[in-house]
């Protein structure tokens, strides 16, 4: 699976650099403190930049980090040094879009913490993998694969509305299409 695009982590921090939610998909940061140190590093390195409207990119500790600020939150996706940045950006886009849709565009720390379950479910829908059980005692540490990158599809899966039909935009129910349209409109107005 060396060829598969890999996401190393997906993290959501608040405006003080404190973790709101995170999903780590590799052993690059083996301990919890190593993870926190990396998050801190990303936080300090991105503070002076402007990533409000558009995803920004930085090389941090030899990793490619794609990040975006929304209100008092920092969303970021990390990939390896040789990863296609645009794939990482797509993943980040999917994450922010889904969170935006599910939180009805009230994307800020307060709402995010209130709806932490939603955030965690989003993360779960974006990547799939982790430990696999080989036998009762032996766990196989497997790689993570990108499961979904489309924001509305992620939101659908999380909110459980997908049972009614297909997932791709063309197959959406009318309500959802309307909701999506409203989100897009709201977002363009906000800009």
């Amino acid at each position: 699976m060396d060829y598969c695009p890999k996401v190393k982590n997906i993290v959501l921090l608040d405006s003080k650099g404190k973790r709101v939610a995170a999903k780590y998909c590799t052993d690059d940061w083996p301990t919890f403190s190593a993870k926190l140190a990396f998050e801190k590093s990303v936080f300090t390195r991105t503070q002076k930049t402007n990533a409000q409207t558009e995803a920004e990119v930085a090389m941090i500790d030899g990793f490619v980090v794609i990040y975006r600020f929304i209100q008092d939150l920092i969303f970021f996706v990390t990939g390896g040094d040789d990863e296609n940045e645009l794939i990482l950006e797509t993943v980040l886009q999917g994450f922010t879009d889904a969170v935006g849709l599910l939180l009805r565009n009230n994307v800020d720390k307060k709402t995010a913490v209130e709806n932490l379950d939603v955030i965690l479910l989003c993360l779960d829908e974006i990547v799939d993998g982790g430990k696999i059980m080989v036998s009762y005692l032996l766990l196989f540490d497997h790689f993570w694969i990108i499961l979904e990158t489309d924001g509305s599809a992620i939101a659908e899966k999380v909110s459980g509305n997908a049972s009614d039909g297909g997932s791709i935009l063309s197959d959406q129910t009318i309500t959802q299409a309307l909701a999506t349209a409203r989100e897009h409109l709201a977002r363009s107005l906000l800009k």
Partner: protein
Amino acid sequence: MAQPFLKKDDDRDGEEEYSLFFGIEKGAVLQEARVFNDPQLDPRRCSEVITKLLYLLNQGETFTKVEATEVFFSVTKLFRSTDSGLRRMVYLMIKEISASADEVIIVTSSLMKDMNSNTDMHRANAIRVLCRVTDGPLLTQIERYLKRAIVDKNPFVASAALVSGVHLIQINPEIVRRWSNEVQETIQSRAALVQFHALALLHQIRQNDRLALSKLVTSLTRGTVRSPLAQCLLIRYASQVIRESTTDNQTGDRLFHDFLESCLRHKSEMVILEAARAITELSGVTSRELSPAVTVLQLLLSSSKPVLRFSAVRTLNKVAITHPLAVTNCSIDMESLISDPNRSIATLAITTLLKIGNEASVDRLMKQITSFMSDIADEFKIVVVEAIRSLCLKFPQKCRSLMNFLSSILREEGGFEYKKVIVDSIFILIRDIPDAKETGLFHLCEFIEDCEFTYLSTQILHFLGNEGLKTPDPGKFIRHINNRVILENATVRAAAVSTLAKFGAMIDSLKPRILVLLRRCLHDIDDEVRDRATLYLGTLGGEEPTAKTDQDAKDFCLEPSEEPFDVASVPKEVVGGKTAAGLASAVDSYQTLLSAIPEFSLFGKLFKSSAAVELTEPETEYSVNAVKHVYDGHVVIQYNCTNTIPEQLLENLGDPGYYICRCIRSRGVLGSRVEAPPVLTVQFPGQTFVAFEKPAGAATVGKFSNLMKFFVKEVDPSTGEAEEEGAEDEYQLEDVEVSAADYMLKVGVSNFRNAWESLGPDNERVDEYGLGARETLAEAVAAVISILGMQPCEGTEVVPANSRSHTSLLSGVFIGGARVLVRLSFGIEGSKQVAMKLAVRSDDLRSAMRSTTSSPTADSSSLVNSLLRGQPYYLILLCIYIYTHTTTYTHMYRYM
């Protein structure tokens, strides 16, 4: 999930909800988890508790095994509820906690039920969870469901099944390979991610079959893949096929060339970038192949999206390393990126420009960089400095302006790492570019005038001491260096003192001035500085030990004489200190002692005197020790006798009938026993010398039993006069053994490796020995070294504690003047058995070999001859033989 946040929207009563996790505590949440066991489940409350548990895990909290098991079991109870939101959380919780709970198998039945549910979301999630808790046997049970799920019309279910396949193939490849047809079918799916997952799984299924893989990629490149992610994956697989098949497709166009190029025109930028990167990374890529890729990347450089600009400039930066010419066209776009708000992009642009820049553009570029340097972080500056360094090495003519740039940024604010990179770069440039030397050194001198980093100051001072001497006018640097002595902290002052001394030592004209400066340092408050100053004053100003040699050498150069230069006349420095000096003086004193005895003067030059061997127990009536003196054709044993009892007098003066020593057994190299009477006995009061004859140059070994016969006379303690009559008495002494070590001079070599190589493998003999059981390896090593009597070189006599193997390097001069080098390799095994490999190289071996080969018929006799002449190799083997014989015999000496 829809209800909870609807509700939250409604009742926003203050911060209560917001502080859901405020003051949260693991113990309390675990208590709350008991609601999972309530007969009447409250889905919302249960969801909330699961969220709290997940929050704890997310914040780095860990559950003990017992806690995890408990939580896991109570969570499984929630399968009773039909609430889809809660079910979704249950799935997530099981996945998060399953790693620590091996009881996970109990949920399989619930999951298998969900896997066949009518709700798509349940099916998809149940598959994902199930695949993490499944094992071999279970997989065969659920296989048909998974196969059906792959072709499910719901893309989420299909994706879940495909992704599970990707994971499961690692555990059970046989089963997953059987799904090939179903997977093939889904690759045509309209859903983007299904296509991506199907492709990943198909690749996994066929990864070991290169031909099948190649076919798969070929068929897919004909344009059925719509998803950008899948297309990216396909490009990567195509690159893989290209890499693995370059050998059999040399003629004509490269494999998939058209496909990669068509991807450059794909509507998704993700695919364009992937294709461009794939092309630039092709092995042996031609400029014709590169040019379309570079063109699309160039377009991306002016994109409004930072990520696009970044990825494009990063790729071009890599291309510039190998194909700078291909990137030259982009330089205008690159230059505009220098002002990019994203400093990562700007730095990449700068370094790319530095790589592709030609000599003419360097100056203009440097101007732009100067303004740019002030507003980027140190880590970016480091990258730029490194790029400038390689640019300078590429265009040495431009070193003046580049050096000026480096010195100007050196003066600006910056952290240690940054300054260190600049200083290191200047060092390299000074070393590699002659023109840069003088200016570079002066920039460094200026820098240390105002340098806050002690480390860098000392580095520069040391560097000045080396490189400054090579400039035409080294005196110019003295002022700068002396300023450090006056102004800096102790570490820098000490370094400056050393540098000053270097100048003084190398340049005679500067010496008087340096001595004055150094003398001032004698009153420094710091010990180290004072010590250094004293030391250097001593070496520079005091009596120079090498002065005479210098004078001799000069005389010799001016008036070459017929006489060859005698190395022995060079004053030697005694390295070993007191003991070595003591030893040398002991040998000298023996030489004088023995040469004073006329009988021995005919024996020639003394080869070696052993250390004194005690022949009596300590604190007995008579204390006797023996020293063995080895001559070319004789062995002299010197007995020193001390009477420890004042009440008696020992006498045996002048009576030839009573010699105290008799050789009982002399084992020659052939092992024959020779009863050899001493040829000569000389006695002095307290000292007796016994000489034995042996073949000239031979290393005869043997054992001598010693019996002291004498008259003992009573002494009156009051008068101190001895009685007339005495009684004859005997005293049995310890044996004296003349061993091989007595024929070996301990002479070290300074470079064992060179000496070893110079003797060459032709002069080598190797043999292996078992030395029997030993307590430690060190003991065996010490024993063998003392038996050989050779000088351990390079500290190899010391065996590190607990080491299982060791190599000792020994050197010496054997009687007859042959140089002998020995390499001993030891190994110890678990049962303490020591094995040894002995390799000997010697000058003398050469002649022995020649004599043996020249007369192959008389093989044995020449061997005997060489043995008689005392060939060191055989001798050494012999000692080992004796050694093993007298201790634990394990290996038969093959020449005996």
